[in-house]
């Protein structure tokens, strides 16, 4: 009697589970989008403080170009760029936080690599900063190039980063014996390097430039000219929600394309009457550009009005703060850089 009852309940449970999955798969609207709209805020994972990319001021306001990606998504799906809940994460925690569903976007100066994209349940949606790994040393050391590195050099860095792997490749290829000192938090790395524990500090060059501003005496340190790796940094989402992935990708693309067409937060509204259909599509005045995501037609206009285009974001966060005034490769393709996004049409 009991035996049959057990079988029956497990059968019912199985059917219920299968049914739940089929209905979920059939729903057109993204589950993450639905949850986000229900909660009323976008859950965004950022760094624990990297000036220019994601950094909180004394009153807890987050700024930075990584932060702006999340704000753009919030503007698109919730209508308000401020409706974001930021979760500061260490390099070690970031992917688990995303795959476990604690956050919905990871916008935390994260390098796009094959194994990360393919193996661990993540999908990279684009690049919002082209970077490369470099080294910082004390000026007084007289080192001006990585060719002056010698056996026994100690290098401070973060664990759980591509940096740790690149560093090994670099020193091995040069045949230099080195002492890796890897910390969990960026602040700890900086503190240890600043104290003299390490001869060099290595991470993405943008990170070096940003962290230098936090040091006791920034002028005592220089970033060496060599770049030892490609580090395309960009926002990441969980695998398995294609619509949400598209929303984040095209929120970023909108910012970059808006700069291309000269649409800024100030002139976005007046662009509605532009003669150029490409511009009109970007401000929601032509076509049905939001329907495919389950959004209204002015989602992209809100991004540009509330957050601004990529150029505005870069200027506000990275150039004006003195971190990297020169945009380098992060310039539009039309102006000699490599920022090139597919057209919104």
């Amino acid at each position: 009697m009991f035996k049959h009852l057990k079988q029956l309940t497990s059968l019912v449970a199985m059917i219920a589970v299968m049914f739940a999955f089929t209905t979920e798969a059939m729903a057109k609207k993204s589950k993450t989008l639905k949850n986000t709209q229900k909660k009323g805020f976008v859950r965004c994972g950022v760094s624990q403080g990297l000036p220019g990319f994601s950094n909180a001021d004394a009153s807890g306001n987050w700024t930075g170009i990584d932060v702006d990606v999340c704000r753009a998504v919030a503007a698109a799906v919730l209508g308000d760029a401020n409706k974001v809940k930021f979760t500061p994460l260490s390099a070690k925690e970031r992917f688990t936080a995303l795959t476990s569903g604690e956050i919905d976007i990871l916008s935390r100066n994260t390098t796009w690599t094959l194994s990360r994209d393919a193996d661990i349940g993540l999908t990279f949606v684009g690049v919002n900063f082209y970077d490369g790994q470099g080294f910082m040393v004390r000026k007084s050391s007289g080192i001006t190039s990585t060719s002056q590195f010698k056996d026994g050099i100690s290098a401070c860095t973060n664990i759980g980063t591509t940096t740790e792997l690149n560093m090994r490749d670099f020193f091995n290829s040069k045949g230099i014996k080195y002492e890796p000192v890897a910390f969990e938090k960026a602040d700890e790395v900086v503190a240890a390097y600043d104290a003299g524990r390490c001869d060099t500090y290595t991470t993405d060059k943008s990170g070096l430039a940003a962290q230098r501003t936090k040091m006791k005496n920034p002028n005592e340190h220089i970033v060496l000219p060599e770049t030892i790796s490609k580090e395309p940094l960009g926002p990441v989402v969980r695998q398995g929600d294609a619509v949400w992935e598209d929303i984040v990708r095209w929120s970023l693309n909108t910012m970059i394309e808006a700069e291309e067409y000269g649409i800024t937060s100030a002139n976005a509204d007046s662009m509605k009457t532009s003669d150029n259909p490409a511009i009109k599509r970007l401000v929601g005045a032509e076509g049905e550009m939001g329907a495919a995501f389950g959004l209204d037609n002015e989602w992209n206009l809100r991004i540009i009005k509330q957050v601004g285009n990529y150029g505005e974001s870069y200027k506000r966060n990275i150039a004006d703060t003195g971190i990297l005034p020169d945009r380098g490769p992060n310039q539009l393709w039309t102006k000699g850089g490599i920022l090139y996004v597919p057209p919104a049409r």
Partner: protein
Amino acid sequence: MNNKIKKLIPQILTILFVVLIFGFFTMNAQVNMDNRGIDFGFGFLKQEASFDMQFTLLDYDGQDSYAWAYVVALLNTLLVSFLGIIFCTILGVIIGVARLSQNFLIKNSAAWYVEFFRNIPLLLQIFFWYYAALRALPLPETAEPWFGVTYMTIKGYYIPSMIWENLNVFLSCLIAAIVSIIFIRIYARKLQEREGKQLPVFYISIGLLIILPMLSFLIGGVKLDFELPVLKQLAQTSFIFEGGIALPPELIALVVALSLYTSTFVAECVRAGIQGISKGQKEAAASVGLNPNQILKLVIMPQALRIIIPPTTNQYLNLTKNSSLAAAIAYPDLVLVFAGTALMQTGKAIEIVGITMLTYLTISLSIAALMNWYNKRIEIKEK
């Protein structure tokens, strides 16, 4: 019969509940991993780790597998725990006895020590020793030697390394000395039981431990040389010591913080143990003519140990688990390397966290088993 069923039903329900919960967790994890295209498996352990470690006891290179990285990181964890347990025991016993001293100054300094170190969070203490104490240390080029040949610097503690010739002869002499000491102890006990005579076992043991290894130097052809750390210039203002052994500051800070913190708890266990023995025991022992040394060794300590061991075991377990705070100061222990870097590179969160949890469980249970065995050995034997 009816009663029996009544007793059984809650137990069956509990088991069913536990099984269902585990089943739910497993299914939930499986469904979510499937959705995100994450595979479950331990194949990654054979892959090349491709990251380096700062400090290892065995040879390790980035070309080795994740499995080997795990072993090497585990050894680092065990090293810290081992050193921590030894130092916290020595310190703890001294402080615990000092708290019972008649001397006002000793008694109160010990009490202050205990209250101070046990009431500050351990993580803060680790940060203090690593960041504050470390910053106060000199750079290699300005370091003054300690004991003539060792150098304490911001980059680590450099000590001479030993270069042995015929090390195996020396080791066999050492083992021979230890084995003969064990036999002499057994013989001494029998002698006392049979004839009531006492041998000066302690002095004989010390003598053997010194004389036999000495002989290996004189006759056995054993030679010992020291390789001293030598200052080397890397760049204009960047120096390092080469040669000898370098103990990284991360290891030192961690061992110091763990030992100081845990020693306060051990001290309290020791104090409790000694105070738990009634005064009458000591007076009775004195009245049968035992001297103070014998009273402590034969009457007080055997009884006090019974009170001291179980709570001290807890402290050893705590220390071992607390050693995982190493991750905060870049000491490459199991949590930093395996549950940190390896997890990040492979993305095998469930597998790696599972292995790490099982590892700590195994270490803790082993320590507990060892201490339980010791506790059994010294407990009152009912005759």
